[in-house]
């Protein structure tokens, strides 16, 4: 029993190397194939401690203490940049002198106020406005993208 516990600890010992999730979402699996069960779904930028590497897969431990295998192309040694870096966000907050004039957050259905004004001034037809509206709202669940990768044997599903 004692021996088993020691062996497990040694297997899980981290190497001291830190990686970051570099995909919008990524699956942590119990083994190093895409057929192994998913033990956690990770988000972009999550910090991972490396346990060991094996070709296309890396064994990692998450901040929550979950250990598993992640496809190597889903991790990066450098922290991925966000959509808004610190400086851009700072500039945006300073420039926003009249918060009431700023439109609803991105992702809400409907055009942004400034875009709507632009459409009026540029004489954009209702049909084309609706096309941009639909484009803005277009969503595909992450699960569907995983299925798409799987059926094309892409990413971690490659043989």
């Amino acid at each position, binding site marked *: 029993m004692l021996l088993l516990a020691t062996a497990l600890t040694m297997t899980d010992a981290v190497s001291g190397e830190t990686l970051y999730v*570099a*995909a*919008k979402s990524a699956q942590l699996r119990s083994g190093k194939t895409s057929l192994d069960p998913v033990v956690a779904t990770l988000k*972009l*930028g999550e910090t991972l401690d490396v346990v060991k590497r094996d070709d296309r897969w890396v064994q990692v431990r998450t901040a929550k203490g979950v250990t598993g295998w992640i496809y190597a*192309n889903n991790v990066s040694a450098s922290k*991925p*940049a*966000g*959509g*808004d*870096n610190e*400086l*851009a*966000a*700072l*500039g*945006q*907050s*300073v*420039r*926003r*002198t*009249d*918060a009431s*004039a*700023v*439109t609803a*957050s*991105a*992702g809400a259905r409907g*055009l*942004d*106020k*400034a*875009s709507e*004004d*632009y459409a009026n*001034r*540029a004489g*954009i037809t209702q*049909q*084309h*406005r609706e*096309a*941009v509206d639909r*484009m*803005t709202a*277009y969503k*595909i669940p992450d699960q*569907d*993208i995983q299925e*798409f*990768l799987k*059926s*094309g*044997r*892409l*990413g971690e599903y*490659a043989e």
Partner: protein
Amino acid sequence: MQNKTYRTLLAFGLLLLSTAGLTGCAEIQKVAEDAARSTGNERLAKTIHGGGNLIGGLLPIGYEEEHTIGQAMALQVIARYGGVYDKPDLTRYVNLVGRAVALTCDRADIEYRVAILNHDSINAFAAPAGYIFVTRGLLKTIKNEAELAAVLGHEIGHVTRKHILDVIQRSKQIAGVAEAGLAYANKNPDAFKNVIDGAVKTLLDEGLDQGKELESDRLGVIFASRVGYDPTAYETFLDRLRTLKGDDLAFFKTHPDFSNRLSAVRSTISEQKLKATGTLLADRYSRSSSGAL
């Protein structure tokens, strides 16, 4: 080091502006100019010296502003190209390829969406905040999913590197919008319209500079290759375009010099050791597009 000094300088200026309102702007400008010069950044010092409402204009555009710019440009792109091609299954397929490539691109946290423009010409465009367009003519020229993945990777590259925003920020037309942001755009719609029209002209008529196109070519093959597509598919595709007769002048005007582009792609594949996986997915492409184009 210089970047850090620049950030500190801007943060200092912003702090002063936010506490003192806009009074004392000239003094702040002088301090900022001297500080920039003392760090050896003469270019920044001159920019500050020549700037009016300097601080906001020097800062990068934030995502909310980027989204509005991208959306307004999308309106004009769709209008200029006569609308979108309304084929839901094909649109979903093109978006799935785009999302698959975007999943592990260098800016994976924003939404990317692709619309098909109902136009025979061969072209693709990217507006800020992930608004990507491919023409029906382009989809007819593409032979497999790996080629489409690299083309979409190229466009995603323009978005990740904020190429259009860079053009806008370098343009004098930005005066006002970059300084005062969306609040200014909402209050001064004419100025905002000028910014958008200028950016669309660059995107559709003049084209981005060669450096930005080559950078996006490199990123396109890297992003597509990360997902497992064969990067050499993009070489084949560019080579095919090169041999096309010049019946699509717009494309060749906005995407010039295929020899340079091909050599950039080849050197990227070699330097980055991108694997020729053989994954082209020609059947899936053919199945998804057959009868729809």
